[in-house]
């Protein structure tokens, strides 16, 4: 049997990738909190030591690595949809984040990134 290429798919893949990133992007929800911001990332199976969060201006960037692991001896992939390897996601928030205090918390496969901005304290509506 031969290895074959689906040329139309290549074109489509290339076209959608023209402005895209090389790494996979975890989905994210953004919340406004009384002390700043809370960003929730869908990040199951990623170790805490493989995650890095940085802020620059009004941007928050999450990057890291999801590694697969062997479930048990003698098992091999029948199919694969989960994205592994390097990921990166940059989000723009409507305020300056420099100097914000960053707290990370993992919960049931979700990463919570809390940005506590100095002097910010909103009343609960």
């Amino acid at each position, binding site marked *: *049997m*031969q*290895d*074959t*290429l*689906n*040329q139309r*798919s*290549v*074109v489509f*893949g*290339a*076209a*959608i*990738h*023209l*402005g*895209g990133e*090389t790494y*996979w992007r975890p989905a994210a929800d953004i919340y406004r909190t009384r002390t700043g911001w809370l960003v929730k990332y869908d990040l199951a199976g990623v170790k805490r030591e493989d995650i890095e969060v940085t802020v620059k201006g009004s941007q928050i960037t999450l990057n890291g*690595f999801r*590694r*697969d*692991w*062997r479930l048990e001896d003698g098992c*091999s*992939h*029948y*199919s*694969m*949809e989960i*994205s*592994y*390897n*390097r990921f990166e996601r940059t989000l723009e928030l409507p305020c300056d984040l420099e100097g914000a205090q960053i707290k990370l918390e993992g919960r049931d496969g979700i990463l919570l990134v809390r940005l506590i901005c100095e002097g910010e304290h909103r009343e609960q509506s």
Partner: protein
Amino acid sequence: MSSPENLQTLPVLPIKHAVLFPSMLMPLNVGRPSSIAAIEAALASEEKEIVVVAQRDAAVDSPSLTDLYSIGTKAVIKKMARRADGLLEVVLLGVDRVVLLKLEQDGAYQKARIKPLPLPQEKSTEIEALRREVGELAVRALALTQPQAADRLSQLITDAKDSLRLVYTLAPMFSLELEKEQALLEAPTVADCLRLMHSYLAQELQVLELRSKIANEAQSEMSREQREYLLRQQLRAIQKELGGENPEQSEVSLLRERLEKADLPEEVRKEAERELGRLEKLPPAAPDYHVTRTYLEFLLELP
């Protein structure tokens, strides 16, 4: 499997007739047993990484180091599914450009010792000019090859700010020959890469425009003949409706009558009858119609 010098050893996936560029996705159906083994080895790793490299000769089934280009692309397997016929469907994402240093057999597949070959990143006014020029050529060519998607693709091309990514996106769209795609991957500078792409696109555009011209001419020639045929059919229908013989038929009848009355040598008569039979079958618009009629009239007027 990284070393301090950034050397890595990864399973190798040789591919035919195509090059995987960094940042590009490539769907592939993998069927060769050694390729399947290489994919499975990569899937069993934490990072799902594999080296994708083009074969110099597609006819070679088990390529050695010399059968492969020395520059390839490190890729991550994004998706994989097994088909009932035993093929593996995979989607690969090119990540880094790499140099193959060494190949070694590991069971059913080959592994390669690789080192990164970072992509060039220089910027200049010339590069900006080249990028725009390449974009313009691509938009013109796409209008001919994919008119239904041309608007959307043209917008993406115009908006693309990264020169290398633009070239890597365009190359598979135009199905460039393997040697050309490989030269783009190996280009040492952004300007070199853009210049190569510009020359390939300019040539491609010439061919596409010529093909389009030929197709248009053939279409217009067919339309003219179809129109004449239709008009002749209509004319015959009108004459039939009016109960009259059409002018060409009456002309042929007149010539036949004159031929019967003419005192001609046998050989000349035979030739004249043959030509008259031909005239009956010719449409009056055909250039031969007038030549044949004039020839017959000349024969009949000879003393």
